[in-house]
C-alpha cells in the first residue's frame, strides 16, 4: 500500500535510494578493455596543446608521446589546466593560484577546471572551504560553496558568474546557446549558467555518479564521472553525528566516502556485497570507487558510456577528452591513461 509508505517510513526508516545505472549508462567493461596509452602517477586533467594531448600529474604537466616530456613543473600540485585557441596555457594549482600566460592571479580557493572562449577564461572554483585535494572533506561537510568565474585573459580582471554550486568540478562552453555547462558534483548533476552570469539552471540531473570535468565532443560533450553514488555513503551523509565523529576521529583515507582508487588497505570500510566470495569480487557489488566516462549529445542527454566496474582497475576518471573519434580518459585512481573508441557500440 504505497499511500501508507510515508507513515510506515516513520517506523521502519525511509529507504535510501540512488539512481540506477541504466539506459545509456548501462554498465560495461569498456574502460578496462580499452587500450592503455600510458601508465602515469595520478593523471588528472587532460587537454590538447598544439595538436598533442597533455595531462597533469601531481606538480607536473606532461605530454603524451614517446618522451612523456615534462612541459611545466609547478610549486604545488596542478589542479586544473586549460589551453586557449592560441595555445595559451592556464594552470590552476592546489594552493589556489591561477597561472595564466605569464601572470599569477590570486583570489581563488579551489580551482578544479577551466575553459577558454572568446578572450575569456572560465574558471570553476570547487569550494570556498577546501583545496581541490581535500574534495572528500567538502562532500562530507555537505558544503555548497562552489562558484563560477570569468577571467579576462588580457587584463586578468575576474568576475563571478554564479555561486552556491555544490562543488563545481567541470566547465565547458556552449557557444551556440551563449551559456556555460558546469558539473555540480555533490548534486550529481550538470547545470547551465549564462555567459553573462546569473543563476545556475539544472540541465541533466540524477546522475548515478559524481560528475567531474566536461569537454566538447562531436557536437556534444564527453563527461568524466569520478566516483559512483553509494547508498551507504548517501546514508552516512544523512547521519550528522556519525559523520562528525568519523571526520574528527578517523583518517580521511578510511572514511565511508567516495574514493578515486580501488580498495588497497584492510582499514577501508567494506560493504556486505563487496565481500570476496569463492575467489570472486562481484562487479555489481556496492563500491566506493568506479570508472565512468559518458558521452552526451548537444542537448546534454547521455548517449553512450564506458565503465570500469567494482572489480575493475581504472577507477576515478577525473578527466576525458575526445580527439578524432577517440576518447582519452585519465584514471586518476587507477594511475593510467586509457584510449577507447568513441561511439564504439557501447551504450
Amino acid at each position, binding site marked *: *500500500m504505497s499511500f501508507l509508505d510515508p507513515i510506515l517510513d516513520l517506523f*521502519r*526508516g*525511509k*529507504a*535510501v535510494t540512488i539512481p540506477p545505472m541504466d539506459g545509456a549508462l548501462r554498465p560495461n567493461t569498456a574502460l578496462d578493455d580499452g587500450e592503455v596509452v600510458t601508465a602515469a602517477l595520478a593523471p588528472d586533467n587532460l587537454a590538447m596543446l598544439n595538436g598533442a594531448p597533455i595531462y597533469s600529474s601531481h606538480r607536473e604537466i606532461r605530454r603524451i608521446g614517446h618522451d612523456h616530456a615534462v612541459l611545466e613543473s609547478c610549486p604545488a600540485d596542478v589542479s586544473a589546466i586549460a589551453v586557449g585557441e592560441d595555445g595559451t596555457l592556464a594552470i590552476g594549482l592546489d594552493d589556489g593560484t591561477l597561472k595564466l600566460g605569464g601572470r599569477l592571479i590570486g583570489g581563488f580557493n579551489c580551482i578544479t577546471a577551466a575553459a577558454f572562449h572568446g578572450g575569456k577564461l572560465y574558471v570553476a572554483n570547487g569550494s570556498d572551504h577546501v583545496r581541490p585535494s581535500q574534495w572528500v572533506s567538502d562532500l562530507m561537510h555537505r558544503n555548497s560553496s562552489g562558484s563560477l568565474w570569468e577571467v579576462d585573459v588580457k587584463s586578468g580582471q575576474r568576475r563571478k558568474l554564479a555561486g552556491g554550486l555544490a562543488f563545481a568540478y567541470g566547465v565547458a562552453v556552449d557557444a551556440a546557446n551563449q551559456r556555460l555547462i558546469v558539473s555540480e558534483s555533490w548534486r550529481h548533476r550538470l547545470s547551465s549558467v549564462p555567459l553573462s552570469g546569473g543563476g545556475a539552471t539544472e540541465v541533466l540531473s540524477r546522475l548515478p555518479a559524481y560528475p567531474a570535468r566536461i569537454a566538447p565532443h562531436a557536437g556534444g560533450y564527453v563527461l568524466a564521472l569520478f566516483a559512483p553514488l*553509494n*547508498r*551507504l555513503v548517501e*546514508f552516512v551523509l544523512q*547521519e550528522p*553525528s*556519525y559523520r562528525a*565523529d*568519523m571526520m574528527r*576521529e*578517523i*583518517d580521511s583515507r*578510511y*572514511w*565511508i566516502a567516495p574514493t578515486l582508487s580501488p*580498495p588497497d*588497505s*584492510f*582499514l*577501508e*570500510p*567494506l*560493504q*556486505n*556485497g*563487496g*565481500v*570476496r*566470495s*569463492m*575467489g570472486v569480487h562481484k562487479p555489481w*557489488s*556496492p563500491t566506493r570507487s568506479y570508472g565512468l566516462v559518458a558521452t552526451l549529445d548537444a542537448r546534454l542527454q547521455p548517449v553512450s558510456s564506458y565503465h570500469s566496474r567494482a572489480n575493475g582497475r581504472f577507477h576515478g576518471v577525473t578527466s576525458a577528452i575526445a580527439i578524432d573519434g577517440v576518447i582519452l580518459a585519465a584514471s586518476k585512481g587507477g594511475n593510467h591513461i586509457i584510449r577507447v573508441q568513441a561511439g564504439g557500440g557501447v551504450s
Partner: protein
Amino acid sequence: MTFRERLQAWRYNYIPDHVIGEILSKRWADNAIPFLALVAVIAVFGTAIPGFFKPFSLLESTRQLGEFAIVVMGLTVVMLAGGIDLSVGSMFALSAFSAVAAFFIFHQPVAIAFLAALATGGLFGAVNGYLIGYMRLRAFLTTLVTLVIGRAIYDILVVDYGSVIQTSTASSDIWDFIGDGDLHGVSAPVAAAAILAIVFHIALTRSRPGWHILAVGGSRRSAHNSGIRVRQTVFMSYVVSGLCCGLAGFLIACRLSGAGPGTGLNQEILAITAAVVGGNSLGGGRGSIAKALMGAIIVLVMNNGLIRLGYGTGTNQMVLGIMLAAAVILDIRWLKNRHKVLNEVYVAPVYHRMGETQSAEPGSGSPYALNNRIATTEYIGLGELEGPEDVVLDRDDNLYCGTRHGEIVRFFAPDYRRSEVFAHTGGFPLGLAIDRDGNIISCIGAMGLYSISPKGEVKQLSAETNRSYTSIVDDARLRDPNDLDIAPDGKIYFTDSTTRYDAHDWVLDSIESRATGRLLVYDPNTGATKTLLDNYRYTNGVCMAHDGKSLFFAESWACRVHRYWLEGPKAGTAECVIRDMPGYPDNINRASDGTYWMAWLGMRTPSFDLALRSPGFRKRMTRRLPQDEWLFPNINTGGVVKFNETGEIIETLGDMTGQSHPMVTSMREHKGSLYVGGILNNRIGRLKLDKADPNWTGPTSYWGARP
C-alpha cells in the same frame, strides 16, 4: 566518552530491542493483534456498560458466549482445512429445534434430546462434507445452499409446532440445570466450551488428524502428495462443525426452553466474523483454537454491548462488517509482509566500545604486522571446493574439510590431487577434530555436533543444551555450532557462536554485536550437553592446551582469546589472555613447537569500530539500506597468528593481495606444512613452514603414537 555516547550506550544496552524481533519470529506472535483488540473491546464496553463485570451479568453473558464459542470453534476447524461453512446458523437452529422437539413434543429424556441435537448437526455436517469433500463442490455455494434450505425447514417447523412446544408440560431438573444453573459460577455452556477448546487445541496441535487438517488447509496438493486422505479430512472437518452446532443448539434449547423464529438468525455472519477477527486465515492452514476463542469474545462482547448501549441492528451489522473487512485486509497484508517486517526489525544493535589496538599494517613494527607469507600457497582443490571452513588431517596424512554443500571431502595423501566425498551431512560442516578412535567430530552449522566414523557413517552426538529461563528464542537448540576440540578424557568442548542468527548469517551477528555466544561441553559417557559459559561476542575457535588442562577459545567480535581452565585452582573459570587484537579471531589449533595457531577471519576498520559505538546508526542502517549495502567488518583480509601459552604474539602471516586467502577461518599444521582454509574461499592453501617439526601431526599430539 561523550554524553551522547553514554546515552546511546544506556539506551541500546538496557532496552531489549531484540525481543521484538524474537517475538515476531514466533508463530504465536500472530495472536498479538487479536489479543490487543480483545483487551480494548472488553475495556471499552466494560466501562461504558454499567454492571458489565457484575457476577450475574457475567454469568448470563458467558452462557451465550459458551454456545457461540462452540459454533466458532467448529467453523474454525473447517476454515483450517481450507473450507468455509455458511450453514452454521441453520444447523444451530435445527439442532436446537430437534432437542426441543424431542423433549417437549415427544417427551423424551434429556439424553435423547441431546443426541437428537447432535445427530441433526452431524447429519447436516455430513451432507456438507460429502458434497464438498467427496463430490468436490464449492464450499461457499454448497454451504450457502444448506444454509438456505436448513433455514427454510426450520421456519416451517417453528410455525407448525411452535404452539405445541409452548403448551407442553414436560420438565426436567437436568434440563433446567443445563439451561439455567451453575456450579461455582460456571455454567454448562462455559464448561462445555472450555473442555471442547482443550480437546480441539490438543487435537489440532498434537494429533495426527489435527495435523492433517492443517496440512490440507495449508496446501491441498502437498497434503495429497504426502499421502494424506484429503477428501476424508475435508469431510470430517464439516462433520465436526456440524456436531459443534448440534452441541451449541442443544445448549441454547435448554437455555430458552423453546425455539423461536430468531434462533440462530445471522449466526453465520457473527461466527465467520469471529473466526477471522481472531486471526484465522480465510485461506486455510493458519489459525488456532485460541484465536477462535478470542474472536468469539471480541465479536460477542461487541455485538451485545452495542445492543445494550441502545444501538440498532443496522449499526451493529455495520460495525461487524467493518471489523470483518479490517481483519481480512490485515490478515492478507500481514501474511504477505510478515517476513519483511521481521527482516527490518530483527537486527537490534547494542553499544560496544572496542579497545585501542596495535596496528596490523605491514611495516608498522607491531607483532601483528601482516605480510604476504600466505599469498603464495600451493592450492588444494581449487575450483572443486566451496567453503572449507576447517581442515584436519588424519594419521595417514589424508586431508578432510567441510564444504558449503554439506559434504565432508577427503583429499588423498600425498599430493592431494585426488578427492572423494567422504560423508554427506546435510548441514554446513564447520569445525573438525579427530578423536582417539579416528572418528571425525564436526560442528555442523544449524544442526549440531556430529561424529563421522572412519567408514563415513554420520551420527548425531548433540543438538541441544539446557535452555535458559529468560530466552524467547529457543536457545536450547544449537543454532551456530562453530568449532570444537576434544579433551584427553574424551569430553568434547565446543562453541555455539550466537543464539540470534543462523549459521549462514554469521556476519550479521557482528553488526548486532550482542553477546550471546556460548561454550558448551558434550559428555560422551552420558550423552548430555551442558552450557559452561555464556554471553560472549561470537565464541569461535576452540583448542585444547598442549597439557590438556585448559583450553583456549576465541571471542570473534570482541577480538579476544580466552583461556578456560578444566583443572587446577581456576577450574571452571575463564580468563582473557589476548585482548584488543586488530583482527577478528576464528579457529585456534596446536602448533608443533608447543604454541598455537589462530586464524583471523577479518580485520577491524576504524569506520566499523566507530559504528559499534553508534548503535542507532547501525539500527537505522539495517532499516534504510538493503543488506548488500550494509557496513561490514573488513572480511576481505585475514591472516594467521601464532601465539604462545601466555598469549604473547610470535608471528603473523597474511595475504595482502587477497588473491589466495582473503579470509582465513582455519589452519592446521601437519608434518611441517600449514594447511589454510576459509569459509568463503574456493581452495585450501598449503604452506611449507621453515622451522616446524617435520614429523609432528595433530593426532599424535592429541592421542600419542599409533596404537
